[in-house]
């Protein structure tokens, strides 16, 4: 550039610098303004996870757009949030106060944000639900786990369960009856293993938490769990040791695939599809995930542990409200509308999760999903949360469910080389470190 350029009256140095300064100021100001707390002046932001296929998102968005608020309540806008990096997405949004007024999310997310003072407790909303009948429509025991010291952190919207599945054709081929107790299961598993089938189909590789959930299922099935009835961390109990000894026995008898500890979700699905797995613990929608249309992959009945206990792990997916909202009344009004109308998601069959409202479980459209209806009927009544044998969910559970402590423990158990007591003690130490 030459000096002549700066002598050009059309672009003086001062003029250019003034323009640049003005532009920078405008940019800075625009960066400081946002869409406001939890939405704009005339709408609240609803962030929803993709709980089903793209059809789910379209249906949920349509349901949100159909909301017609009354009085001074604000309408709602819908935003889908991908599961990839959702923790970071929510954290950065909540920290910068550009997050939603209402959202679904991770199972324990509400407890984490409640601890940080970012959650608007749902007590008033639940009072409204008690008046309009929604509260009595909830399946038993699904609301109470959300009660924290200062109030209800969230409201359950759907149910996710870990249940036993079996492939009927394999059991018929080997001549094995569906087991009803752990003893029967062990005997059946050995027969299946002798024919090259695995009766404890699982996986604990990158991103696959079915293995970790299966360990908790076995503990709960034996009357154990990570916590005692008082809600204190208590991993090294006789019941847990017994349950994990049983898992070790399964590993030793080759009832568990030796490679399972490294199986990703895709690997595990592939093993189910290629008919290597005869039985296993999985999500409530396994038959749909495998694309089974022949009725070969079926939900098993709950088995009794050595002391007669029955039980499994359930996750209560939920919806939460944030303190960063343009109008708390509007957040609650929208959620009331949502609960009164979201049965349409099951009627349209766009959501694979199980409903938490009895009225939705009774819908003919849901009852047509025979296996899922069976899960609600036979497994939900014995479902317990991660807090078992306690009942109250806590922020710590987020770190346990997503964290490395449980993953390492699961891989250790599936490797079958460490004694159960030592492995459980390590798990307890690792969880205590999370608490600190």
């Amino acid at each position, binding site marked *: 550039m030459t000096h002549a350029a700066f002598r050009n009256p059309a672009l003086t140095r001062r003029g250019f610098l003034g323009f640049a300064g003005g532009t920078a100021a405008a940019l800075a100001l625009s960066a400081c303004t946002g869409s406001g707390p939890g939405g704009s002046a005339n709408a609240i932001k609803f962030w929803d996870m993709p709980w089903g296929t793209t059809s789910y998102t379209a249906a949920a968005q349509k349901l949100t757009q159909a909301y017609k608020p009354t009085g001074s309540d604000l309408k709602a806008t819908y935003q889908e949030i991908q599961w990839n990096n959702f923790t970071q997405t929510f954290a950065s949004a909540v*920290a910068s106060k550009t997050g939603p007024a209402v959202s679904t999310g991770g199972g324990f997310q509400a407890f984490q944000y409640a601890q940080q003072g970012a959650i608007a407790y749902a007590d008033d909303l639940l009072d409204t639900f008690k008046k309009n009948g929604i509260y009595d429509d909830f399946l038993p025991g699904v609301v109470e786990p959300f009660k924290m010291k200062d109030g209800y952190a969230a409201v359950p919207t759907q149910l996710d369960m870990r249940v036993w599945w079996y492939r009927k054709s394999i059991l018929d081929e080997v001549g094995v009856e569906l087991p009803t107790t752990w003893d029967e299961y062990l005997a059946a598993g050995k027969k299946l293993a002798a024919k090259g089938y695995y009766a404890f189909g699982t996986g604990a*590789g990158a991103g696959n938490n079915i293995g970790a959930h299966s360990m908790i299922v076995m503990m709960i099935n034996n009357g154990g769990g990570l916590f005692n009835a008082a809600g204190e961390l208590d991993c090294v109990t006789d019941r847990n040791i017994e349950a994990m000894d049983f898992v070790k026995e399964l590993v030793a008898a080759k009832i568990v*695939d030796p490679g399972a500890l490294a199986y990703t979700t895709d*690997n595990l699905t592939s093993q189910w599809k290629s008919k290597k797995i005869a039985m296993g613990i999985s999500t409530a929608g396994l038959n749909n995930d495998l694309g089974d249309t022949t009725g070969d992959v079926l939900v098993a009945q709950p088995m009794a542990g050595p002391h007669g206990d029955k039980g499994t792990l359930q996750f209560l997916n939920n919806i939460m409200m944030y303190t960063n909202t343009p109008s708390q009344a509007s957040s609650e009004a929208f959620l009331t509308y949502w609960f009164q109308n979201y049965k349409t998601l099951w009627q349209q069959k766009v959501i694979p999760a199980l409903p938490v409202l009895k009225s939705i479980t009774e819908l003919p459209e849901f009852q047509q999903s025979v296996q899922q209806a069976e899960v609600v009927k036979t497994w939900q009544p014995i479902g317990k949360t991660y807090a078992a044998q306690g009942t109250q969910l806590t922020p710590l559970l987020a770190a346990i469910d*997503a964290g490395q402590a449980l993953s390492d423990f699961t891989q250790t158990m599936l490797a079958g080389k460490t004694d159960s007591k030592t492995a459980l003690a390590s798990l307890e130490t690792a969880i205590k470190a999370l608490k600190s």
Partner: protein
Amino acid sequence: MTIGGTLQRQRGLTLGVLIVPSVFFLLLLNAYPVVYAAIQSLHQGSLIATGPFVGLANFTDVLTQASFWHAAGFTLVFTLVGVFGSWLVGLGFALVLNRYVPAGGVFKVLLLLPWVVPIVVSSTSWNWLVATPSSPLPQLWHLLGWGTPLFLADPTLAAVMVCVFKVWVSFPFMMMMTSSALASVDGTVYEAAAMDGAGRVQQFRHITMPLIARSTYISWILMTIFCVNDFPTIYLLTGGGPVDATTSLVVLAYRTVFQNFQTGPGVAIAFLMTAALVIVSVVLFRQIRKSAVE
């Protein structure tokens, strides 16, 4: 003061002011995250709040944890194998392709594919290749009568697998770096050496290696940084398992922050990683200077 001097000053002032926005945004984009991370490493916070000040407690906690030293050990192995493994393979291909090879350009493009293909795709392919007993590689092992290895379930084999995968992904970069260095070597030097009776090995040792040393050191520095900071290669293939066997420092930092939700210790791990990287880079940069002087 002369007119020229005034103009010079005005020009300097103008340029100085014009550079301010760039400096501002550079600071905003680079310094701010680093400063904020430094603050986080000194606090016991969460993902959305800074939390109470704890001084250097996060660093001392991290440095006294066995998991940190285990991850540091694996990071060292992963980096050494990643850097020198990919360099050796890359150098080999570069030397071959430096001579006349029919359709050499096509080969070069094909050899670049591991570097070009998105890591998510290649890690999925490798998982398909080795994960289950019915995967192609274990099947091949079985057919050869070598049993059915658990490539990702056995801690040692998983560590080997991750390192081999890293070499496979990285050698094209080394090949390109070395190829460009070899192309700049004057062919007459070899002719002169041959006339003086130098054999192939002597030529390689005393001519090729010294002449490409500068480029080699730079590629080592870059690959060291790539390896130490490599999250997806490990995380997508093994998730750091089985039982932490393939957990590197960057994977440990990620898990600590985003899975255990312990922001302070996680960021402290990242800072310690950065410090180690700076030391290694400085040592290698000194080597570059030395090689330039020689």
